[in-house]
């Protein structure tokens, strides 16, 4: 009897494990996000327009807040190592989000000029 109960307990436990594992598989399968990979490649493509090291400014239409905007800043830093990416202008080089109104409305960009063609969503500026 005890043997039967222990076998039943093991069977139940393994079924529980299988259900958990298949649930994990389904959860992972349903996810679809390659956004960060795309961003990393995009920022890495800007490296050719930047000096090999040193500080780089980062300008976005607004202050980076928790969410996609802040995540983009983090990915920019990751892609552009060993450069040091920080929010705001000041450094000789800036990575700027290619949003039409940023260049015109943001006075933080005065004194800078495009340094290269940039990517789809970002462009490098350098001090004139």
């Amino acid at each position, binding site marked *: 009897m005890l043997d039967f109960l222990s076998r039943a307990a093991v069977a139940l436990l393994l079924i529980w*494990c299988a259900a958990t594992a*298949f649930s994990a598989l389904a959860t992972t399968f349903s996810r679809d996000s390659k956004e960060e990979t795309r961003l990393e490649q995009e920022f890495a493509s800007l490296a050719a327009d930047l000096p090999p090291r040193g500080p780089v400014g980062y300008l976005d239409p607004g202050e980076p807040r928790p969410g996609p905007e802040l995540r983009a800043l983090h990915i920019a830093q990751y892609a552009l190592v060993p450069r040091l990416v920080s929010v705001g202008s000041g450094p000789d080089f800036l990575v700027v989000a290619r949003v039409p109104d940023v260049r015109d409305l943001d006075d933080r960009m005065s004194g800078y000029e495009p340094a290269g063609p940039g990517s789809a969503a970002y462009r490098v500026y350098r001090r004139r």
Partner: protein
Amino acid sequence: VISSLIGLLLPAGAVWLWLLAIGLRAPQHSRALTAAVALCGGLGLSSLVTFWWLVAGGAIGPLFVAVDALSWTIVAAFAWRRRSSASRLTSDVPVREPRTPGHWLVCAAFAGLAAIAAAVAVMEHVRSPHGQPDATLIWNLKARFMIRGGGDWTAFVRVPWSNPSHPLLVSASVARLWAYAGAELPTVPLILGAATGIAVVAAVVGVLDPRRTRAWIAASVVVAPLGFSQSIAAQTADLPMALYLLVTIILIASAGAPSAPARWGGSAGAPSAPARWGGSAGAMTAERAAIATGIVSGLAAWVKNEGLVVFIIAFGIVAWRATRTRRPRALAGFAAAAAPALVTIAWLKLVMAPVAPEYFGGSPGLSAQVTAVDAALVGTLAGRYWMNWGTGMMPAITLAAAMVAATRDGRFARQSLAVLGVVFAAYCTVWWLTPLDTAWLMSTTADRLLLQLWPALVVAAFSARLPRLPASGNLMR
């Protein structure tokens, strides 16, 4: 990829040979446990070498790879020579036990679950080749500074979100393996995660005896949840932390033979005779056990800040045993073994990056504040505890571990739960004292911290009727 595998296996193999050479090993049927300990040692020690190479001004490039590979080969060769003479003194007789169809059925179930876990890890990697956010914020970011930064590799200290003072075992290992691969391949951190996951399973199976069905049931339970399989591809330090915590607990338990401590080492254990963690012939000396515990627990502190708690617990237990058995050499051996990792941590935290962790405000000193513990916080934690490890699985395993601990032969479970309880209390203390939003911090860290406890908790739950450790440290039966 093959080069990075060589870079991963070379120090682990060298440490394995040294473990055999000095007689610190599990019995023949638990080679898996020896392999897990060897990976802990190899990974940790090679990351220390990488760090000090950088501190000395060396770049992580082809020269580093050549010197590193040559050094570990020499270490392995010396260990092999010592092992050759030591192995003649051993008398491990392979034990053949009849395997029932049920045993093979459970093994097959484990194989299926491990395949699913591997599939989840691969899918995760395809979806996020650079790992979970913490990988690009902290661990791989620092590895890139090490690889790309040259003499300015410490510039990551000026990246505020990188948690500059976090220990660097994972980052230095990734940088080292990237150097072996000759490129910053995203698959390299995945390989590191996979090796760590395999080592966790090896430690679980090894300590519970692979000839016994329960070892494979326990391994099935460990690999089933999403949190475990995801962590393989996460490229963070939580799975390595789980490994070092598990192995430290195993070493503490295997070194603790209160029934006959006087028979360990000293006059009873001839220095030339290879001691073992198990088996009937050898006696593991208290000093050697303490050395192994010192290496692994010291390296645990080099994995993550939580590891410092693990080290302090290990130190306390070894010091208590050394005092009780009047064996100060055991404590000295423990301290000497942990010293390389501790000196490195001190250098990192006091000289290179004297910044408090983000969860203490990121400023020097303990700028902490007490957060009121309310029902919402407890509910958040309980929800994670209940749901995120396969509905109800973690509470069930905790209950099973507690039941085993309450039995007469539940010594291993009692020790494990005591250590895990202190570690969990440390997590709660940080949540309680942090100036950050506690609910946010808890929601973003609870799953990862529970992962760290998971393998050791499962082993405790399946450790019923492990016999009391005799003088020979017969843990693995």
